[in-house]
């Protein structure tokens, strides 16, 4: 039998046993924690970096809300700053936090453990992926300190305004932003190749694709989407850099700026919008699919019931992935497109609701008559279902051209996309952290703090975004620094805005509770043991907790069943791990565990 060497490309059949010498072994502190090739360490590095930059974006959103809630009260927020806060908040949250956290963080930690592998197939490339990502983040942070500050072009970076004099950050900020994105994409591609090939080729014996936990399916499909969609952002970033630095006219039409005709001629700003949204819409599902997958596993585990319609869940993930590439222009109804195209894209947008609804029904049917444990991960999972349905339904409104046109530039859109792709995925992130923290550290997170954190976050985010829908219906525009005196916006809109700001500050501060919990539990948390939730998937079956390098000790696990054997009738315990052969399943008297 050929031996499988984790960082070698010439062998392919995973053996049951790996000799000690063949794994990458860090010898120094730096080799173990800094230049590490262990996917678990890389996952932590990804997660910590993503959360750190995410906190910056959180503070930016406070600053933005302060201006909206209490206009002109704070001298340090001027119109330029405000636009910069909006732009950087959006870009950081979508790309540098959520994408990196779900795929780089959870993907790296969970893929090898859940499929029963020792590591990613290309650990060196995996390490490189993180360092390129870190470099991209540092470039992004650097843009706060260059002359002119970061770009204020909005997270969509539409030309021509993104690179015209007069937009904040049009000299340095935008270049750093585009270069940072290009590096992010390069780094992600390295990681993404790893995730896909690892899922395809490094699964343990007996782990067929149709026995994979849905978490892995979500991450796998999201990675494929990202690998195919990020090139669109790459292409547009490169072309915009050329327009800006070398004077080409890909996106820049003939234009007069500050009384002077520029040398650009004949470019097409709409071309940029097509490219950007060709990336931008799949990006929504790059964030959503891992969340879908994780939430399926959380619900099944904490409701002690097998996931309803496993195969349908897998097909729904694939269908959503495929459809997400043909809906992009619903972000561009206001760009003056041919009405027939609007009709086409409205139709595809509504069609994508079908597989999504299948997933929601299946989650609810999994809960139906389950033995629901209201643990903290379960609270977050159920919170996700509510929030996602809310945000998804307003998406159906906005997918229709006639509804979208009047609402497109209002707070309604802000409320919609924050519900569906900010709050919903972040609730899953929290749920997942509460769920897997015991595996990562060997200690439980504090339950009481977790519950307080959940309720403030959940109720608080509704306090933020529900009123925003009303503001949108009233016609309160988004992206505006100040609304000023207008006839159609009543005085009360201002009090609502102030209330939203207060809610946003409270929710933001509540996250400190979570950070405190993370740090405190690391030292003082209750020891968790190897499998505190009585879960079935392979990551809970490691001989040590936290898992050591190589994950599974001497023998790789062998898989006999899917990951959802909960509450099987006639079996002693209410769960059967994936690596327990049918002959070893204890039968007889039910023991509640």
């Amino acid at each position, binding site marked *: 039998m050929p031996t499988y060497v984790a960082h070698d490309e010439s062998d392919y059949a*995973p053996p049951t046993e790996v000799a000690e010498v063949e794994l990458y072994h860090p010898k120094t502190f730096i080799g173990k924690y800094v230049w590490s090739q262990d996917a678990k360490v890389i996952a932590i590095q990804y997660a910590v970096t993503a959360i750190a930059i995410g906190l910056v974006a959180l503070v930016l959103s406070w600053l933005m809300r302060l201006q909206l809630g209490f206009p002109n009260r704070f001298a340090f927020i001027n119109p330029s700053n405000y636009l910069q806060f909006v732009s950087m908040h959006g870009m950081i949250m979508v790309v540098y936090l959520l994408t990196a956290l779900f795929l780089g963080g959870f993907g790296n930690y969970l893929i090898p453990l859940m499929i029963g592998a020792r590591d990613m197939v290309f650990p060196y490339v995996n390490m490189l992926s993180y360092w390129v990502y870190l470099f991209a983040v540092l470039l992004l942070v650097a843009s706060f300190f260059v002359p002119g500050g970061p770009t204020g072009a909005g997270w969509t970076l539409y030309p021509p305004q993104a690179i015209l004099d007069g937009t904040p950050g049009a000299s340095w900020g935008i270049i750093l932003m585009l270069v940072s994105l290009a590096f992010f994409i390069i780094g992600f*591609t390295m990681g993404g190749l790893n995730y896909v090939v690892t899922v*395809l080729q490094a699964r343990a014996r007996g782990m067929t694709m149709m026995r994979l936990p849905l978490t892995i399916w979500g991450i796998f499909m999201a990675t494929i989407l990202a690998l195919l969609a990020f090139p669109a952002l790459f292409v547009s970033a490169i072309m915009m850099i050329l327009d800006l630095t070398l004077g080409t006219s890909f996106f820049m039409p003939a234009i007069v700026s500050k009384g002077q005709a520029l040398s650009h001629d004949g470019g097409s700003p709409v071309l940029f919008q097509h490219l950007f949204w060709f990336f931008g819409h799949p990006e929504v599902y790059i964030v959503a699919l891992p969340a879908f997958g994780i939430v399926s596993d959380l619900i099944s585990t904490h409701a002690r019931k097998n996931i309803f319609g496993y195969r349908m869940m897998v097909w729904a993930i694939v269908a959503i992935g495929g459809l997400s590439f043909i809906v992009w222009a619903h972000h561009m109804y206001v760009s003056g497109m041919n009405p027939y195209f609007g009709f086409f894209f409205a139709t595809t947008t509504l069609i994508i609701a079908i597989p999504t609804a299948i997933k929601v029904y299946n989650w609810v049917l999994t809960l139906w008559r389950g033995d629901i444990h209201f643990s903290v991960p379960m609270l977050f999972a159920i919170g996700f279902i509510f929030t996602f349905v809310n945000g998804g339904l307003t998406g159906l409104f906005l997918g229709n051209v006639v509804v979208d046109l009047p609402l497109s530039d209002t707070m309604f859109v802000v409320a919609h996309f924050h519900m569906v792709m900010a709050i919903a995925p972040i609730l899953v992130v929290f749920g997942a952290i509460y769920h897997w923290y015991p595996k990562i550290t060997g200690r439980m997170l504090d339950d009481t703090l977790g519950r307080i954190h959940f309720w403030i976050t959940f109720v608080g985010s509704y306090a933020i975004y529900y009123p925003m829908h009303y503001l949108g219906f009233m016609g309160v525009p988004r992206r505006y620094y100040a609304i000023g005196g207008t006839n159609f916006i009543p005085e009360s809109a201002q009090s609502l805005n102030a209330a939203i700001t207060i809610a946003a500050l409270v929710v933001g501060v509540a996250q400190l509770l979570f950070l405190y919990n993370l740090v405190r539990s690391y030292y003082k948390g209750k020891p968790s043991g190897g499998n505190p939730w009585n879960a079935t998937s392979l990551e809970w079956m490691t001989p040590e907790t936290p898992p050591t390098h190589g994950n599974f000790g001497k023998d790789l696990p062998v898989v006999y069943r899917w990951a959802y054997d909960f509450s099987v009738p006639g079996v002693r315990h209410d769960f059967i791990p994936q690596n327990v052969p049918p002959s070893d399943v204890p039968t007889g008297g039910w023991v509640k565990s």
Partner: protein
Amino acid sequence: MTVTLLFLALLMGAVVWWLLKQSINVQPWVAHAHAQDVHGGVFPRQPATTALVVFLAVATSLFALFISAYAMRIRYLDWSPLPQPRLLTLNTAILIMASIAMEWTAFAAHRGDRPGVRRGLAVAGALTLGFVSGQLVVWKQLSDAGFPLATSAATAFFYLLTAVHGLHVLGGLVAWSRTLVRAWGGATADRLRLGVQLCAIYWHFLLVVWLVLLAVLVSNDIGLAICSSTVSL
């Protein structure tokens, strides 16, 4: 975007076909007494080969998007075609020969003919370097003839697309140099065969991409035929 959508449709077709194979007649909820009773765990293909195939899908997506952007732009009325440097024909011939040389090297590696592999790699590498320098000369010629980068949309796209393709060729040369080290060093026959095999696949890919780019860039007739017959997304 039609070009990209066509590519994605093909890709999604492949994914769906593969998934059908995985899930038809499979009952995930049934436990099996032996792991060997179900497929999975043993794979006929090596991870590096899979990784290359996935990477080629990513690169195809990238080029398809560039061509899509080009296709959207070429339909504008102000499109002014470029002169067609004759050298491009020679460069294309050189790249074709490099691809053939790589394939020949792969055959040599398959036979276990190490001196043959060394010769083949050297020839393929030299030809590829010849192609890259040829492309640089084309740039110089165009630039000297009064068509630098920012002249018109046509020049901008010409330089951009050739540059992106050229960078992929250079990336291939990095892999080629590693294989070269293997061929002269003490790598096992298996490792060498894998390295050469992957290089050959990549070279053929680069050749196909270049032929498509050449068709849409240089021959405005073909470019227009491909790009304007499609729905104007």
